[in-house]
């Protein structure tokens, strides 16, 4: 028991540094996923039938295959095959971002379609082009409605980021494994790692909740 606690205490800074890597991977992936997911969502709501179909297939594809399979496919497969040298960190971020883009597109799509048709109509009636209407009227409202979804997405991604250990990204999970296999304190170390994940999930969730409160507008939430 005492030994377990000592091992945890000694490993803590090393593990916390790992958790920072997780957070960096997740935030970059979310940003990347947002940049892809936003046009996907807009296309899925306002695009023609063909575009909607293509986006539907994209979403189905990235939501239907496990993260681990994508990681192997991209890291050992695609990039090696194309003879491009990328770090495990980059691949992990990219894969998480691609998967997240599919989920984020659905969060945003849900938010956009929950707005009343009247918002678009009124914007057009003022003489706004569809692009202007989407940028100035639809998206500012949709983003606000999406924050709870993003909070959820952050929590999911953070936990999923532990899987990038399979590529050797030196994040929390891999560091925990490293300590555990040297000290044989598997139980204690993995429990500690689990709690660190829990804490970082909590911090991120709290931060997003505060943001949610900050930007919230009367009558503009679900």
């Amino acid at each position: 028991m005492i030994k377990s606690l000592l091992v945890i205490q000694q490993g803590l800074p090393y593990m916390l540094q790992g958790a920072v890597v997780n957070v960096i991977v997740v935030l970059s992936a979310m940003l990347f996923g947002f940049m892809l997911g936003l046009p996907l969502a807009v296309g899925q709501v306002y695009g023609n039938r063909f575009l909607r179909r293509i986006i539907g297939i994209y979403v189905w594809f990235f939501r239907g295959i496990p993260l681990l399979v994508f990681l192997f496919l991209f890291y050992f497969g695609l990039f090696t095959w194309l003879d491009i040298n990328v770090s495990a960190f980059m691949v992990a971020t990219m894969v998480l971002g691609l998967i997240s883009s599919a989920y984020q597109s659905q969060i945003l799509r849900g938010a956009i379609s929950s707005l009343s048709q009247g918002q678009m109509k009124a914007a057009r009636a003022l003489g706004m082009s569809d692009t202007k209407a989407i940028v100035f009227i639809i998206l500012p409202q949709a983003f606000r409605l999406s924050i709870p979804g993003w909070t959820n997405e952050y929590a999911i991604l953070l936990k999923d980021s532990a899987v990038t250990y399979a590529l050797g990204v030196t994040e929390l999970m891999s560091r925990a494994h490293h300590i555990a296999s040297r000290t044989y304190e598997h139980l204690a170390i993995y429990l500690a790692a689990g709690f660190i994940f829990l804490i970082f999930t909590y911090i991120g969730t709290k931060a997003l909740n505060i943001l949610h409160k900050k930007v919230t507008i009367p009558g503009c939430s679900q």
Partner: protein
Amino acid sequence: MKTDTEPILEINHVTKSFGTNTILHDVSLSIKKGEIKVIIGPSGGGKSTFLQTVNFLVMPDKGSITLAGNRVNPSDKRELCTHRRQVGMIFQDFNLFDHLTALANVEIGMIKVLGMKKKAATERAMAELDRVGLKDQANQYPAQLSGGQKQRVSIARALAMDPRVMLLDEPTSALDPELIGEVQSVIRDLGKGGMTMIMATHQIGFARSLADEIIFMEKGRIVEQGSPDELLAQGAATRTRDFCARIAEIGGE
């Protein structure tokens, strides 16, 4: 306020179907500057659809719209936006932008569509809010306003664009009875100020006192049109009068 010039807005032979369901059958209407035309008729008769074809929120299948002598080509995006900018629209359920304050709702068209500077837009927006009696509510969000206040903001929003014609689709239908008066009086003032308007309404008394011409629309066709006195006079054997009598029985107007 009537002037005997060319019509400012002409709607020619507009037809619209949804699927196999034809909602508008070859509807034509023209209106001169300063005129007020009021459309009445049973629910589902196509009033809203008709008004929305005028600014192409609903694309007509056939027919054309001519504004100030210029026949609008709706497939030219720029021309379409210019046309819509010049035609103000008031919706039954207000459609204020929920994420913007009353003031920002009025400003946004001027800034994003007309390209006005923020400062000038704010000044004009405040003037318009003042005109509809809502200067003090400028910083409220739509959710914090009553129905009547929302509709007045939406009128201010349309006016700020300096429209040549206003379309009003049952502007008081979604309001509690005690709030109808404040919106009606704003609309009345607009008419006195010479605004050209086409309005759909179920408020017969209001229609009668305001309209230069009443248009009775049923099943997607204009069945009758004429001055309120012609159509609604005691003993006039018109469909319009029948309809109004029936509404009066139910609604007690």
